């Protein structure tokens, strides 16, 4: 595979503007806009039926958008550009979709021809090595486990050395070791500058792998770096634990300007809402010591991407 620079002058790898897809009266996704830079790992999250797979199929030229516009791998998303866009991208669908009666090699041979790959033997060898399947090349796909089939599908997606790689639930049904291998592979692809559009239900996967994430529930709920989304949605919180409950906690915390709110969680545990947790933690420590309290710990209360996701989806669902 060729190496690509992460900083790129080609413009965005994917640019989507007010894209909408309807099937009759049913709205699959509506008025979606975002941009993805070359070399970025972009997570696309959302509940079942949110329109994630339909978005991937639309950007992959399988479905025509109802409204809006997009460019994929530098080409406008039009029926005329379908073949050329598909030449530059690869999609690994959620279901591996392998020919069960054909061997791993026969499956990859077929797709190497469909992509018009020169020297397919070398490319197939490299792709299989990338997913750790070199020793299963002559096995029939129907005889492989689900996890191995998923890996063959990933090898198939890597065959064409795509500029943009769409991965639809790539670790679905994989055991933790196989999922870790896929994560490592995504990391390697990112190093090579491949743009990755990752659709996943696994929020810890998105948090770990993605530069930015978008949360979709028919409409785009939010987009940004996982940390930014968290900061935007949740105030920073310090968790304070003392050996004994404070006699007058209000008197201690109210004196600290950066503490906007506080609550006693249980016994001698307090949650303080602050503007800047790192700057405020030493101030809180000093105030507690001055009040004669013995401090066990002061820690930042972390909100995960899962908290962000659930908050946004619940808001969208009116809960």
């Amino acid at each position: 595979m060729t190496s690509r620079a992460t900083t790129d002058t080609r413009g965005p790898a994917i640019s989507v503007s007010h894209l909408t897809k309807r099937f009759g009266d049913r709205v699959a996704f509506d008025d979606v806009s975002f941009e993805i830079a070359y070399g970025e790992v972009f997570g696309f999250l959302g509940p079942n039926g949110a329109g994630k797979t339909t978005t991937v199929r639309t950007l992959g030229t399988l479905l025509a958008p109802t409204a809006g516009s997009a460019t994929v791998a530098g080409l406008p998303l039009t029926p005329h550009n379908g073949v050329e866009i598909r030449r530059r991208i690869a999609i690994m669908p959620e279901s591996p979709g392998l020919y069960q009666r054909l061997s791993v090699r026969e499956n990859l041979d077929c797709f190497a021809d469909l992509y018009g790959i020169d020297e397919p033997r070398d490319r197939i060898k490299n792709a299989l090595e990338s997913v750790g399947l070199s020793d299963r090349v002559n096995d029939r796909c129907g005889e492989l486990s689900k996890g191995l089939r998923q890996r063959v599908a990933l090898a198939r997606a890597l065959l064409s050395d795509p500029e943009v790689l769409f991965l639809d639930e790539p670790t679905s049904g994989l055991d933790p070791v196989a999922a870790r291998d896929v994560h490592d592979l995504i990391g390697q692809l990112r190093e090579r500058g491949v743009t990755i559009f990752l659709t996943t239900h696994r929020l810890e996967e998105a948090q770990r792998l993605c530069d930015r994430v978008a949360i979709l529930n028919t409409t785009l709920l939010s987009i940004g770096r996982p940390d930014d989304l968290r900061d935007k949605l949740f105030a920073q919180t310090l968790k304070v634990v003392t050996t004994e409950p404070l006699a007058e906690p209000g008197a201690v915390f109210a004196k600290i300007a950066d503490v906007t709110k506080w609550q006693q969680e249980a016994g001698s545990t307090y949650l303080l809402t602050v503007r800047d947790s790192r700057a405020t933690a030493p101030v809180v420590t000093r105030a507690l010591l001055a009040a004669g309290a013995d401090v066990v710990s002061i820690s930042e209360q972390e909100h995960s991407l899962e908290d962000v996701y659930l908050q946004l989806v619940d808001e969208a669902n009116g809960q």
Partner: protein
Amino acid sequence: MKLNVRRVRAIMLKELRDYSRNRPIIWAMFLFPVIFTVQPLISIFAATGLTAAALSGRHELLFMLGVPILVPATLAAYAVAGERLQETLEPVLETPITREEFLVGKALAVFVPSVIISYIVFAVYIVVVSLAKPDIAPGLFGADDIIVQIVFTPLLAAFSIWVGIAISTRAGDPRTAQQLSVLSSLPVFFIAILLAFNVIAPSLELAIFLGALLLIADIVGWRLIVPLFDRERLISGAH
């Protein structure tokens, strides 16, 4: 329309490999040829006192045109419905292949074995009858019968393939598609039977007329099939 030969060949080879390991497909490939070879041979070998003169006017070989009608109908019905069943259609359509290339690859994978099998069946029949019953062979087939077989076999196979693929793009599962496809091809087979048993008197003019009609049907069939193959409907199931 410009076709990429490598992509067409990729689909064709993949299909042929898949057929060769698909037991129901292998059965279909051999069942009809066996029926259409054995039945006429039995009727000839079981009958006594047949003479070439008494048989003149019968065109047993035309009955055997059932092979290039029914074998491709069965195989072609599997073409798209089988891919949907295996969930393999989406990955293929995500490659740079055009629908024309996909359909031509699929059609060739059915056409080539169907025509070869048909010619083998005819050859077996002609050789067996000529060697075992040389006295009545001239009454059963002449040079004109053989030319008709050679010309009509690919025309009929192409027609059945388009019918089969058309049904396959619309059917929910391969078995339903196969049943509908064979059923849809039967009217053409009945015409062959009527000609074989002289209910409709065969003639050169009729042969040219039917040949031209089939050729037009094959061309029109191709033009109708391409728009029927709608990526969006096939992937999303939308109507």
